[in-house]
């Protein structure tokens, strides 16, 4: 954050940490309420929570959170206590780290890393570690199967996720998320500079691949085999109770927000609005980014609430036989156009 440049290092760091600590739960609550409760309910011709808090049950999730915190923290006798206790935190930390590089305005970014998108994809795969720790330490066969499924799935879908981003990085010529946003604001579609170049126009296959892969990364239906409740009880979260369970769910929902934000930044132009710069962009940026994030998140949850779960081999087939070749082709075509223009 450029605004914080005058402050001493410790103060700036404290503020940045505070922002992240605030944004993650709020984003999880917003997505959880808007999509997991309300959109899902209406897609199933229900109303969802209506009573808590008075207005359309807005307080429901906060109340759920308080309930989770009050619950007993049960650790199975056979569990590896230290690892078991640490696992949800590892998953949540990966989510926290993900929010660091997401820009919400020209000056509104916690840390604009040069390798921003590389960093984001790297820390997002950190959650696999936490999931494996949870599954292994639970000393429960369902947890272990769920964790191994999650590991296999996240590794398989990390690849198309990264490859889909490669096209964007090639076109923008930078890995910094701010740089990518600026390129989209100023660039042009094949020489036409009307509204800049939101990469969804030139990288549509990349956007679609990214969405599918993000769906799998978030272990959302139709790719929710790690949690498959009809097969594995609750996958790697089977043995978790109370606030540790809450951590997993907060991490999942907040990561959905983060990945939607990254998708919005990479493909929809992020905080940028054509011809808007400076302070106005700083004010308008979070709103614009928020709208775009909600749009992408709606797509993610819409797919989640519509499709049934795939089979484990179908899941792997979609990644290795379809998405990865398609994303490689996308890179090839992007490279050709990059050289030609």
């Amino acid at each position, binding site marked *: 954050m450029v605004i914080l440049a005058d402050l001493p290092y410790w103060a700036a760091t404290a503020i940045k940490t505070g922002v992240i600590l605030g944004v993650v739960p709020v984003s999880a609550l917003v997505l959880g309420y808007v999509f997991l409760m309300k959109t899902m309910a209406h897609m199933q*011709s*229900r109303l969802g929570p209506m009573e808590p808090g008075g207005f359309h049950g807005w307080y429901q999730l906060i109340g759920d959170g308080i309930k989770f915190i009050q619950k007993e923290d049960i650790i199975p006798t056979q569990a590896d206590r230290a690892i078991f206790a640490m696992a949800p935190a590892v998953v949540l930390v990966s989510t926290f780290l993900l929010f660091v590089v997401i820009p919400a305005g020209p000056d509104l970014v916690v840390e604009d890393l040069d390798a921003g998108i590389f960093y984001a994809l790297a820390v997002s795969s950190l959650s696999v570690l936490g999931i494996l720790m949870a599954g292994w330490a639970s000393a429960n066969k369902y947890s272990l199967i769920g964790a191994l499924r999650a590991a296999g799935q996240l590794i398989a879908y990390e690849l198309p996720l990264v490859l889909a981003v490669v096209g964007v990085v090639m076109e923008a010529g930078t890995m910094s998320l701010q740089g990518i946003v600026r390129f989209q604001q100023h660039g042009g579609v094949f020489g036409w500079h009307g509204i800049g170049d939101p990469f969804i126009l030139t990288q549509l296959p990349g956007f679609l691949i990214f969405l599918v892969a993000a769906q799998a990364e978030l272990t959302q239906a139709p790719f929710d085999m790690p949690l498959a409740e009809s097969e594995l009880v609750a996958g790697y979260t089977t043995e978790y109770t109370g606030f540790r369970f809450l951590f997993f769910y907060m991490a999942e929902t907040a990561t959905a927000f983060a990945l939607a934000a990254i998708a919005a930044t990479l493909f929809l132009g992020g905080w940028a609005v054509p011809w808007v710069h400076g302070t106005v962009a700083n004010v308008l940026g979070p709103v614009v980014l928020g709208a775009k994030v909600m749009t992408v998140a709606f797509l993610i949850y819409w797919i989640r609430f519509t499709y049934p779960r795939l089979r484990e081999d179908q899941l792997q087939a979609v990644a290795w036989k379809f998405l990865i070749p398609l994303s490689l082709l996308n890179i090839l075509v992007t490279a050709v156009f990059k050289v030609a223009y």
Partner: protein
Amino acid sequence: MPDIPGQGLIKGLGVTLRTMLKPAVTTQYPKEKEAPAIRSRGVIALHEGNCTVCMLCARSCPDWCIYIEGHKEKAPPRRAGGRPRQVNALDRFDIDYALCMYCGICVDVCPFDALFWSPEYEYSEWKIADLLHDKDRLGEWMDTVPEPPPLEVGAQAAKK
């Protein structure tokens, strides 16, 4: 329409989207109410005067939720100089709605039209014991029992 690969996926998304845009079917019960169907099985009403304490309902009840007690009485003879008649008087007729599963066998089995279905359904209680309705409470439901359906053309009217 020819088969396009993945058209089913798009159709599925269409279904959820359309459902989302339509108003939900949920009725916010205590705030708004749906009128139940006229002959819905809400509660069982007792027409005390028709009951002969024959116990058929209590015996046919799968849950044993009907409690009947009665005693024999001498009623005045029909004709002058005749023997006094022996009739059953009803002392207690309770239905425990905490047990009742609304099968309606008692209503079907009653040979003297003493039991009726009423569509009323709002009689929940704070204490489970209060769900035991005595014969006065069951009698109050009689006001809410709908008229029997009209007889078919040519049917023989019931004897009084």
